[in-house]
């Protein structure tokens, strides 16, 4: 076993340099811990299941240029025509989808005119929306055809005051009625009571936030009756592109007095939504790697300086009986001490950084496992970086001791 005192004594002769190296290791450890945490956090968001059959859906935004009064009739005709396209399993008209940014939110209260217990996004569509989107109904039933009511876009969305039933997500049900069976319970998205008839397991809001309420959503039996609408088609994954092309042609043949925009697959919609996050993840990874690289190079650079500087003393030690292994161990221990001196304040700094990030970026608290991983990684990085110079030191011949400098 190597004795620590000689290593420490030698380090005190390079106090400032060793301190700087420790500082660098500490800073790197603190930043990389937080960066790694942010990467994991973002990747988790990227992977949130939307609840719909993502790789079977395609969509197209349609705006009629005609009188809005006839919108419902035209939507029905459009949907009927779209269903006839070969390969289309289902077609519906909806007002919004997860990741579509079009978010209609209502405060949900449990008594008339009461305080809102949760703010939920409303999804509205023509009959069959549940099946067409591939949502999983885990309790209760789908809407009955008789329950659908026009949204009343031109009349201040007064459909909301006329519906009698709703389907909610599991997350919203748990929030509103914790530990109870939500089926049959009454909620107030507006002034009139609405009964919960079904529960779906997952459905994300049209735009996500970091508040943990991303699945607070309701499906309402309201027929979208504005001129702007999104048609969603369900098809086999390999038919998506061809169905999308046929859909635009079919709609234009039916009636050209419309503007069709953003024909895309749900996969594209999702990719677009998270484009910034993907860039950010790439940048975070690059930053972490650059930091580790620079720190490793710094450690290696300093170590090789020190090896050159101490060639004579290494030679003397070898001459008086130290083995190559002893020399190797000496430099490894030295590195271990410096890195340890750096990571301990580094961990504190990591927590401090995390507190700042929590205040400004709605990040959760940094789990201790990241700090442990950070410490281990710093030790490993230090040992990897020092191994080259340390081996060179071990290769110094005892004869160097007697040579003139």
């Amino acid at each position, binding site marked *: 076993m190597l004795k620590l005192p000689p290593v420490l004594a030698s380090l005190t002769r*390079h106090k*400032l*340099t060793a301190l*700087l*190296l420790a*500082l*660098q290791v500490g*800073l*790197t450890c603190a*930043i990389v811990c937080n*960066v790694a945490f942010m990467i994991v956090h973002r990747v988790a968001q990227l992977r949130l299941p939307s609840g719909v059959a993502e790789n079977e859906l395609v969509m197209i935004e349609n*705006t009629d*240029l005609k*009188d809005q009064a006839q919108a419902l009739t035209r939507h029905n005709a459009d949907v009927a025509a779209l269903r006839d396209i070969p390969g289309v399993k289902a077609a519906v008209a909806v007002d919004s989808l997860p990741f579509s940014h079009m978010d209609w939110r209502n405060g949900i209260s449990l008594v008339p005119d009461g*305080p*809102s217990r949760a*703010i939920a996004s409303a999804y509205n569509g023509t009959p069959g929306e549940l099946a067409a989107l591939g949502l999983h109904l885990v309790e209760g039933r789908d809407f009955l055809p008789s329950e659908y009511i026009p949204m009343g876009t*031109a009349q*201040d*969305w007064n459909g909301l*005051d006329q519906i009698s039933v709703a389907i909610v997500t599991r997350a919203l049900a748990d929030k509103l009625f914790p530990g109870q069976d939500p089926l049959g319970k009454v909620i107030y998205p*507006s*002034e009139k009571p609405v009964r919960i008839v079904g529960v779906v397991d997952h459905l994300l809001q049209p735009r996500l936030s970091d*508040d943990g309420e991303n699945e607070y959503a309701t499906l309402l039996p309201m027929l979208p009756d*504005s001129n*702007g609408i999104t048609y969603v088609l369900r098809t086999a994954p390999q038919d998506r592109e061809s169905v999308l092309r046929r859909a635009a042609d079919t709609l234009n043949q039916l009636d050209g007095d419309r*503007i069709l*925009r953003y024909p895309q697959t749900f996969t594209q919609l999702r990719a677009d939504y998270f*484009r*910034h996050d993907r*860039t*950010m993840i790439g*940048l*975070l990874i690059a*930053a972490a790697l*650059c*930091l580790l690289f*620079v*720190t490793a*190079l*710094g450690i290696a*650079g*300093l170590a090789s*300086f*020190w090896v*050159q*500087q101490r060639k004579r003393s290494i030679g003397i030690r070898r001459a008086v009986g130290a083995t190559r292994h002893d020399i190797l161990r000496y430099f490894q221990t030295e590195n271990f001490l410096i890195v340890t001196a750096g990571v301990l304040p580094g961990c504190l700094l990591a927590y401090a950084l995390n507190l700042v990030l929590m205040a*400004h*970026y*709605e990040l959760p608290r940094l789990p201790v496992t990241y700090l442990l991983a950070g410490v281990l990684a710093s030790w490993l990085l230090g040992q990897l970086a020092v191994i080259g110079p340390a081996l060179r030191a071990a290769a110094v011949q005892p004869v160097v001791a007697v040579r003139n*400098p």
Partner: protein
Amino acid sequence: MFGYYLTLAIHSLRRSRIITALMIAAIGLGIGASMTMITVMHMMSGDPIPDRSGQLYVPVIDPYPLDHQKSKNNIVSADMTWVDAMYLLKAARAKRQAAMVTGVLPIHPAQSSEHPFFEFGHFVTADFFPMFGVPLREGSGWTAQDDQAHARVIVISDDLRRKLFGNTSAVGRTLRLKDTDFRVIGVLGDWQPQPTFYAQIDDRAFGRADQFFLPLQTAVELKFDASGRMACWGNNGDARLSDHCTWLQFWVQLDSANEARAYRTFLNDYCRDQKAHGRFPRPANAQLYGLMDWLANQRVVPDDLRMQLWLALGFLGVCMVNIVALLLAKFLRRSNEISVRRALGARRRDIFLQLGIESAVVGFAGGALGLTIAELGLWSIRRQPDGYAQLAHMDMTMLLGTFALAVIASVLAALLPAWRACNVMPALHMKTQ
């Protein structure tokens, strides 16, 4: 002496090429990353309308119910209800004032054979043009009387004019939006404030330019859909014309601090008056935000960019510590050489100068590398389809700033090592020879 030290420095740097390259790479990477982000932030937090921003204010009144959830991060909502906006407009207590909202409308090309297309525009009131100093290359804006009369008039951008009418004049021509004909009365000159400060600040604040402007009252009469956030509470009557849906933006021009103070008093009086009539259940606390304060409050620079800047600066910090340690080791290794020079009569400040110049050389090389990396970084940002991407250009200030940062960083990094090195004891080191 300077030339000699420079030669010495280059000679010394060449002796340990790998370490030198490492130092230059570290400082270059740190500076490059930092300058890329600083440039983007500098461009994005710039003044969109420099000659007028000092006189433009956003009035904030709070008509929301007691249980209304405030947004996180203290982002204020200045959106107004139709009732409040129209009151402030008619009261005309500011030098100029305008209400406005974003609209997206299908535009029918003059040749009916072509397909209609959507464009972003704004529904505004008459003062919009004089208040923001909007330059018009032909025609003019409209008057408050036109607002009252719900005139079917429109001001279009030059891009839209070219797209619709080619190279001919557009004033007097007719343009069909959705299902209504409008008479073109003006064409915008070169006016594309970045960000579009007068609209709701969202992820489209940069890079978008409004293609048309038409009277707000006309748009409301024709039931043209406004786009953007709309918050409602309670429901009776037409949401858009009600006193319980906020969706309009409102700007005022106030030329002096006194006018601003008076206007704020006026707003507070209005809030108290409304309170007496059963509206505005929350405490009356009207605010006036100056344009730049407003943009800062609305987080016009996305949080992610801010985070990227801090990350880049943190990286630069680590690189700096790295360089300080390496220079220290390098200089102290030359204790013998320094001791000989000191013994031969060199003063401490000569040694200090020599070592300082050596690290400044590293700084210059690092600065040049950093500049290249920053240009690469900005180029890659410009290739992103973001609205702010086109702003990512380095101007002269930023260019000089990069070099200054590089040299200052490396000279700062050299201070401590050089000071330590010029304090070596000549006798001690000569003895060990």
